[in-house]
């Protein structure tokens, strides 16, 4: 009867980034997030999905609907098996990029959500978890 509360989407190609965005849009709509909150979460997901693909050489987005006592939220985990981030302070600096990007992905995504956690090991992949509460 009720929709599933967790799932995952692969991040193996550029098209998967589009699909991940659409998945997050659907989920935030189902949870009746405001339009601005939907857009923030979709945009954060797009940045992190691209990071997982470009820098992490692919991975997956895991999603989970959180049912708190008085609130409801959406948690997204972006996991890749890539080279990891050797210098986290640098990676979390606005405008810094190890590739060709603008360097706004990680820091920008962090500003768009309520909770942000990053865990990375050199040669052990990167896991970024974000949560936005309604």
């Amino acid at each position, binding site marked *: 009867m009720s929709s599933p509360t967790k799932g995952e989407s692969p991040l193996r190609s550029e098209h998967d980034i589009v699909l991940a965005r659409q998945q997050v849009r659907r989920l935030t709509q189902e949870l009746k997030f405001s*339009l*601005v909150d939907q*857009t923030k979460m*979709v*945009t954060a997901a*797009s940045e992190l999905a*691209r990071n997982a693909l470009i820098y992490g050489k692919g991975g997956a987005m895991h999603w989970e609907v959180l049912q708190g006592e008085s609130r409801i939220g959406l948690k997204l985990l972006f996991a890749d098996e890539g080279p990891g981030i050797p210098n986290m302070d640098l990676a979390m600096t606005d405008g810094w990029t190890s590739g060709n990007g*603008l360097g*706004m992905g990680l*820091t920008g995504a962090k500003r768009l959500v309520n909770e942000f956690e990053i865990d990375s090991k050199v040669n052990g992949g990167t896991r970024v978890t974000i949560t936005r509460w309604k």
Partner: protein
Amino acid sequence: MEKIPILRMGEFLLVTIQIDMHDQLALKLQDDLSNAIQKNATKGVLIDISSLEMVDSFIGRMVADISGMGRILGAETILVGMQPAVAITLVELGLSLPGVATALNVERGMALLRRKIDADGADVVAH
């Protein structure tokens, strides 16, 4: 092959982005548009993003690049129709698109383009 159409309207080019673009498609648009600006000796470009529900740093950079590249090729670019939720998100993300002219809708964007181009013409005469 997927493609974003570029319409010629007199001396202007109009691009209406109506689909959720993947990154290569955005890059292809940037390429196609620079070629079209040169081929048509275009003075102004309008990019209508009123159907876009999200602009992330990749698309934001594409828009800024098109605007900068257009200027070098002699064309003014105006971004029109950004949804309020997209604008709020973009600023919070850290992209305020400096140097990119914007307008509320295509009509106002067109009027702004005409004014900019007329002003440029006047400058040339004055010198």
